[in-house]
């Protein structure tokens, strides 16, 4: 097992380098003039700025030389300047990261909790109406485009029913809590602002549900399958024979073991959540990395797009690595099967 984890840890920086290389090639082979994509068109008439950018990014050098310069700049956290916000891309991303994390974590909690409950119910009442309803609900969640379901729930729950607030991370009349972590839920609590905390939570409900719904299906199918697997084993029969109640058998004996395989899909569902977050944030005017990426893509803001791509790729790689390690630690059997498949 330790060799497996070690191999994954060694592969990690190499994959990251691969991600960065792809991002670099994207800037190199872009249809637009690479210079304009770094400093923006307005500065093109300023020879001093043009010369400085040419120098710093080595635009008059050969491809390998430019690659080395790019890596060097990146190591110093320099991803170029967004020509939309006129800020360094890395700074833009740092400011927006907490908003995205808060949304994704909330969606993950909602989506997986709901998925586990649905999965357990579906396994317990296998092939019955509850199973079928759970299956249908999960399937619709995985098939609906979030950029439409987001609009729909906003219209229904915010406009028509008025139960929940409209888009945005915080009520439009309120001011942002004093900066501590960038997570509004934590910051409002830290400031002792209960009304603010409640308002922030209300703002979170709709986008997190829409986003979480996309992974509910994957989680519930996985939990259902492994529950059925576990429920057929002999120790369950033994537990029943000893007189354990049905609920106790289901939760205490079966679910605990069925959760193991579910771990593997957390990484997978994270991929789904990143994809979904990009579009969900756009619909809900959520000031995170996703809406930043979309605005950048709409404005053909190349440094920003590439920056987001690198950060997204890195996040993706790290989550997958953590999931695999957690899984290998929890289930020793994974070692063999992984090596065969690798």
């Amino acid at each position, binding site marked *: 097992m330790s060799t497996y984890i070690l191999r994954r840890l060694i*592969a990690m920086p190499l*994959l*990251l380098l*691969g*991600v960065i*290389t*792809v*991002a670099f090639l*994207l*800037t190199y*082979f*872009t*249809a*637009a003039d690479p210079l304009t994509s770094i400093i923006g068109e307005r500065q093109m008439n300023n020879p001093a700025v043009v010369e400085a950018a040419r120098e710093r990014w080595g635009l008059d050098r050969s491809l390998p030389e430019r690659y080395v310069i790019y890596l060097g700049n990146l190591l110093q956290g320099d991803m170029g300047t967004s020509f939309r916000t006129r800020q360094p891309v890395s700074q833009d991303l740092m400011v927006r990261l907490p908003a995205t994390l808060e949304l994704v974590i909330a969606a993950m909690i909602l989506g997986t909790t709901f998925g586990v409950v649905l999965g357990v119910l579906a396994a317990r009442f296998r*092939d019955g109406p509850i199973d079928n309803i759970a*299956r249908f609900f*999960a*399937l*619709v969640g*995985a*098939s*609906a*485009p979030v*950029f*439409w*379901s987001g*609009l*729909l729930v*906003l*219209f229904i729950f915010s*406009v028509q029913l008025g139960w929940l607030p409209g888009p945005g991370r915080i009520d439009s009349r309120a001011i942002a809590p004093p900066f501590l972590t960038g997570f509004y839920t934590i910051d409002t609590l830290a400031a002792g602002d209960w009304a603010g905390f409640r308002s922030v939570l209300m703002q979170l409900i709709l986008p997190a549900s829409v986003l979480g719904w996309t992974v509910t*299906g*994957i989680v519930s*199918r996985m939990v259902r*399958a492994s529950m059925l697997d576990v429920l057929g084993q002999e120790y369950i029969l033994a537990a029943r024979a000893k007189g354990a109640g049905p609920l106790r058998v289901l939760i205490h004996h079966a679910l605990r073991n069925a959760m193991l395989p579910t771990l593997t899909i957390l990484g997978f569902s994270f*991929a789904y959540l*990143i*994809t979904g977050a*990009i*579009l969900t944030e*756009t*619909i809900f005017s959520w000031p995170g990395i996703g809406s930043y*990426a*979309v605005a*950048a*893509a*709409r404005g*053909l803001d*190349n440094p920003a*797009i*590439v920056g*987001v*791509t690198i950060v*997204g*790729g890195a996040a*993706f*790689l790290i989550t997958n690595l953590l999931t695999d390690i957690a899984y290998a630690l929890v289930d020793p059997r994974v070692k063999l099967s992984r090596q065969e*498949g690798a």
Partner: protein
Amino acid sequence: MSVIAAPKARRRVFLPQWATLPVILGGAILLFWIVVGITIPLWSPYEPTMLAGMRFQPPNAEHWLGTDALGRDVLTRTLYGVRHSLPIAAMVIVCAVLIGCTLGAIAGFVGGIVDSVIMRLVDVTLSFPPILLAMAVTAALGPGLGNAAIAMVIVWWPIYARLMRAQVLSVREREHVEAAVAAGATRPRVLVKHILPLCWSPIIVNATMDFGQVVLLVASLSFIGLGAAPPTPEWGQMISDGALHFYRWWIAAGPGIAILSIVLGFNFLGDGLRDFLDPRSK
């Protein structure tokens, strides 16, 4: 990506074995869209870019899904939309399968350095969240449906390369392959005649399910503004319009339901196909 499982196997009298409920349902949805896509110019009362009436009419007898900001008929545009989504998705899937399977088969069969190079390429490509890579590639190539399609092939081929390689690796160990080698068959012949024919079922299942995902991603890219350009009746583009006129919910409703139904259809079909082609997965 398995979201639904097969219903319990029953003895059937009238229907062939592959015709389970998910397959029939999924097939019916897709058949509907294919028929609509081919025949719509023959019977549609409006043109997709025609000004068909007053702007912003809610659904009524004349315009079943209402009209949009320019007075175009939403239902007509929705139905015409399939003429963009399905062909592009088909093209993307075919290219991704061809490229991915060729490289995957070579990697699995030849092994060694060729295998390493191809699979590292696969690893790196799969390190990106799909939509981000598609966005970055499309933005670099320049917005447009064609470039979006190229970007999606780049995003999708590694999945098939990995699948195909695993299949080839497992089939290659079987005894009939050994027998063919012993009988003096050349290496290309062994690969094409004795290994590849046994590798297709997971590829077909995956391609069917991915079809829906590609439709979804095309629409997403257009929604962002990297795919279809405005007058085109493309679903993502139409939803983007609908988001601008948020209180006129019907503008986005047609394309939204269209995407939902087509993705559902492919998921149903893929799931049913898997149960039929790969009974072990039940």
